Each structure stands twice: as C-alpha cells, then as structure tokens.
C-alpha cells in the first residue's frame, strides 16, 4: 500500500478487516476504544456490522452468536471488560465457536490506571474462565505485528475452532509507527469449509481429526449447541464415555498442532551465558538492553514469545539448557516467569518486574544481565 504513521490499535482494526472480520461488538474502554471507533467507520464499508453492546458480557455473547451465524467476529476490550467476558469466553471454548478477543491490557486490578500499560492479564488469559479449556493467546511487539497477529488470530481461531486472545497493552496499542501494510488480497486467510452433507454432519465429531468443521446456522445443518457437556451431536450428556473422548480431543487439539500455533523470534548467540525471554512491550525494552549488553561484550541471547498460550515450552526449555541465567522482564509481578521457571528451573530465572503502569526499562534489564 503506502507507508503511513499508524497506531497499534488501528493496525488491529485493519488486520481484522484483512482477515475477513465482518462483525464487531464491543463496549468502550480505554485503552482499546480506538479499535471500536475505527471498525464502526470501516466495517459498514465492506458490508460488515459494528454494534456497541450494553456491556462486555453482551459483546462477547454477540460475537459468538454472529460467529454461529457464519461471520468472522471480534471484540476488543481492556482489563475490567476482559473480566466481564470470562464466562462467555469459556462458552466459546466449550462450544468450539471461533472468535477473536482483543485485550489491550491496562494496569489493574480493578479500574487501576486506565491509560497505563500492563502485562497483568497473562494468567487471566489462560485461566480466567472456569474449568479446563484450550485457549490461544498471542502478543504483538510492534504496530506492524499488531496487524499481522490479528490476521493470525483469526486464522488460528477458524482453523482450530477456538477463541483466540490477542493480548496487547496500552503501550503498543497507543504507539504510532510507520507501517506499509500489504495488499489484503495477497494475505493468507483461513475460511470455514464444511464438506459433509447436512444428513451426515456431526458438529462435534471426535472422528474427524482434532477439529470437526463448523457449519453456520441457517445453512441446512440443523444441530444443537450448548455449554453443557455434550455428545458429538451437541446434545447434553452425563455419560462419561461421551465426556471423556470430548475432553481428550478438545484439550489436545492445540497441543497436536503446536508447530502451527507457537510463534517465537530467536536472536541466539552460540556461546551466550544469559538469555532474555520477553513478550509484548517488554520485548522492546529487552531488545534495546540486548543491543547495549552485546556492545559491552556480554554474550546474550533473546527469545521473543509471540505466542503466550499455549506456552512455547520446547523453545524455552531448549534455550534454558544453553545458558546459565534466563531473564524474564514483565510489566506485572511475575506471571509468565512462572512458566519459564517450570521449563528451565527456578534457580536459573531472574525476574525483572514492575506493576506500576510504567515500562520495564532497558536499564532494569541491563542491570539483570550484569547480575
């Protein structure tokens, strides 16, 4: 297209449009509102619909309803709104309805600091709704990545019939960078394909690989969707011989495809003794710290996690084996560090945290590198 100075939130809106999103339901909340504003302007131009719902519970419900109706659908919110979405988010996971939830994190708990960035919702993104469930969360580190990962979020969501959370924060959401977006037609976009006839259709089949195709309502495939445990036809069940195969398929459907889901960026120095594992805005500080550290003669590697959930276990474990210390900078009091510790051992991990709404500075990370 052409280079323009674009905000992260705006890039998310364009990414959604490029991915084929045709429905957005949301409720205004700082620092995510620009996404709603942008899509209220752009969606009707491509035949889509924007609706401002009465709250975030309704927003989450509406995008699931629209997705069941056959539209790619998204909502965007921040901390308090993300909390309200949890019950229906679990419904989407349980019923395997694709949808994308953008959480532009702000400082919590509670109303916190509305305009300040945070990475405080990392664990909530994984376990915010009740019960074991599959979830994907991905986190961009730049404006351009906000665009790319939004498309990726839709693609993963459609491919695996799962809600996908785009976990960004006030910093990248509100930051402006020059970007040159690609022509939308050149992008790879996943569409729903149902091959079986209505008579043969089994909406929650355990026998069609990990992810049975989803037929939209009103297309001749009449079936039942419920948040209760259900059999392969979607009818409520209490039978353990129906519940257990479902549990197994749905909770493994992501694990069996980690190659496609887990995205990391590696900047490895072969003889490094220290490594940084970072994501989101903190990865930007970490990159700067890495550059300075190397210029001062430190041997250091860095792993940027674009996929947060499922956690990139293999990549982090491998990295940990090659270094003595792993530094995990986060704008929270230590959330993803718990996962890193699980993979590389507690003694190797150095946490660098702040949860006051300000960025982890390159200096804080440099101090940790210098030990």
């Amino acid at each position: 297209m052409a280079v323009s100075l674009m905000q992260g939130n705006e890039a998310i809106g364009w990414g959604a449009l490029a991915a084929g999103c045709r429905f957005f339901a949301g409720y205004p909340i700082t620092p995510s509102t620009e996404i709603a504003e942008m899509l209220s302007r752009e969606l009707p131009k491509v035949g889509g619909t924007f609706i401002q719902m009465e709250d975030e519970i309704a927003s989450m419900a509406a995008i699931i309803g629209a997705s069941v109706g056959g539209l790619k659908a998204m909502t965007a919110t921040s901390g308090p709104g993300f909390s309200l979405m949890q019950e229906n988010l679990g419904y989407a996971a349980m019923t395997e309805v694709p949808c994308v939830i953008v959480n532009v994190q702000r400082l919590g708990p509670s109303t916190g600091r509305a305009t300040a960035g945070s990475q405080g919702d990392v664990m909530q993104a994984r376990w915010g709704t009740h019960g074991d469930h599959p979830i994907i969360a991905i986190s961009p580190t730049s404006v351009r990545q906000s665009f790319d990962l939004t498309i990726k979020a839709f693609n993963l969501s459609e491919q695996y019939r799962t809600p996908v959370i785009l976990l960004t924060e006030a910093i990248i959401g509100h930051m402006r960078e020059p970007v040159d977006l690609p022509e939308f037609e050149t992008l790879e976009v996943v569409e729903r394909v149902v091959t079986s006839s209505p008579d043969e259709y089994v909406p929650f089949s355990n026998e069609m690989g990990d992810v049975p195709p989803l037929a939209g309502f009103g297309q001749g495939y009449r079936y039942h969707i419920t948040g209760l445990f259900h059999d392969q036809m979607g009818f409520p069940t209490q039978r353990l011989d129906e519940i257990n195969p479902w549990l197994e398929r749905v909770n493994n459907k992501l694990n069996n495809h980690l190659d496609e889901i887990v995205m990391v960026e590696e900047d490895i120095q072969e003889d490094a003794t220290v490594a940084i594992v970072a994501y989101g805005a903190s990865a930007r500080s970490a990159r700067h710290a890495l550059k300075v550290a190397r210029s001062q003669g430190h041997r250091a590697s860095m792993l940027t996690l674009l996929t947060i959930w499922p956690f990139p276990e293999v990549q982090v474990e491998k990295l940990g084996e090659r270094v003595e210390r792993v530094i995990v900078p986060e704008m929270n009091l230590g959330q993803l560090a718990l996962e890193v510790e699980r993979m590389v051992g507690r003694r190797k991990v150095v946490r660098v945290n702040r949860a006051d709404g300000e960025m982890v500075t390159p200096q804080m990370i440099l101090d940790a590198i210098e030990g």
Partner: protein
Amino acid sequence: MAEHILDAHELDVDEIRIPRENWFESSETLQKLRKNKKFPTIWCAGCGNGIVMGSLIRAIEHLGLSNDEVALVSGIGCAGRMPVYMDFNTLHTNHGRALAFATGLKIARPDMKVIAIMGDGDALAIGGNHFIHAARRNIGITSIVINNAIYGMTGGQYSPTTPIGKQATTAPYGNIEPSFPLCELAIAAGATYVARSTVYHVLELDKYIEAAIRKDGFSLVEAVSYCHTTYGRLNKFGTAPEMMRDLKKNSISKAAYEKLSAKRQAGNSKIVRGVLHVNDEREEFTKLCRKLTEQAQGGGRQ
C-alpha cells in the same frame, strides 16, 4: 369446538385455529421434533414449559416456516432447556445471555427467525439489561418468557417476579421485594409487539406467539406459568392442575379489564391477558444496519 372453550378464552370461532384430527401425525413440524435420545424432557411431569413448547411448535407450523430458517436461542433454567427438544438451529447459551447471543446471530442472519426462550430470572434478573437493550434496539427477535415467578431449576429461590409475601427457599420469611412488570418494562423499553397469556389459555398463546414471530421487530410474549415442584409446594398451592386452575381463575382478558370501572381497574390484582402493545412505526434494527451499510458503501457521510 365446544362453545364453552371459546367462552373461557373469550375468543370468536374465526379467531382461532381448531386443531385437526390426527394433529400429531399430520403435523410436519411435530414430526421433526428431535426424537433421537432427547425425550422425555427433563421437566417435571405437569410443568407448564411443555405447554409453551407446544404453542411455539403450532405457531411455527402455522406460519409455514421451514425448520432451517428458525433459530431458537435460550439461556439457563428449566425454560432454557426447551430448544434441545426441537429440530431447529438451537443455541443453549449462558444464564441471562440469550438475547445478547441472539443479537449477534440475528445480525449475521437477518433472514432467519430468531426466537429467544427465557425464564423470569433469566430475562429479568441476570439478563435484565440485555432485555431492555434488545427492546430498545427493536432488533427482530421474538422473546418468549415463561414466567413461573420462581427460580425453578435451582430449586425455588425468589425471582424478580415472585409476589410479595410469598415463600421461596431464599425467602423463608416471605418475599419482601416488589416484582418487575415484564410486559410494561418491554413496552417502556421499545418493544413493538407485547402480549401476555397463561399456560391455561393455550389457544391464546398459540396466537400471540405466531403474531410475535410474524412481527418484524422486538416482540415479547409473556407466558405466565407455574412451578408446582418448588413454588407451588413451598406455598401450598397444590398440584399442577390446581395451579393451572388458579391461572384461569386469577386472570382476566384485556377486553374484560377495559370494561371495568377505573376504580376496579386500579384495584385489579388479576393477570391481564391480551395483546398489550403494538407499534408499527419503528424500523427493525437489522434493516437499519443494512441502510447504514448502504450509506457507508455509497460514500455517505464519513
């Protein structure tokens, strides 16, 4: 049909559809109920929910709708279990959220008849805000609220429609909260078709549900029912047939109500049955969405 039945319902012969001989066998819609493994229902024998389901089926059948073009959306509660038994596109959602899910679905598929089935707690307590806003938008959803004045599924806690003084498991000293007038709330919020009847007055229910589905806008049918298992037992109201008889005794048609003196109207404690409100002026929400889209695509004001 016997005259006394017509009298009881205060109906004219040409106002009703007389059930045919062999009505089950000759009804395509009934034949398409989900027979495979979903019956009997989870409802207590004698529950009014089944009566409302029958009315809904007859209304859909009479409208000549194909099963494919109907979507039934519900929340959680005994009423919310209705869709699973019916061979439509069925979405059983979370407690209170049926209308919010239905809103997304209706926007995605404005060509479909989207019907939301809710309980009184579902629609008025946890889902009260969605109810108000769906009515305000006048989105083309038919809502059917089965008002049994109690939380049936969870075992008889008081709901926003439990009368003052009545017993509930969470109101052991009698309920002290006033109840929500469901239909009046819908009218005030902007619904364009509002009717009320009871599970005793089945022919009325058939008719109102049919009209509500036909209405292009947000419509409400309040089906006053009873829960003999919880509310009935706690308040010693007797068996299901006895509670049904009470609905007959304690209700009055809108026509009869309007003939009462102002004083007697003010003192009326009976359930008023009838079409309480119709508004043909307001445009349906998804139609407005389409207009907005056309305007945006035509380079309208940006």
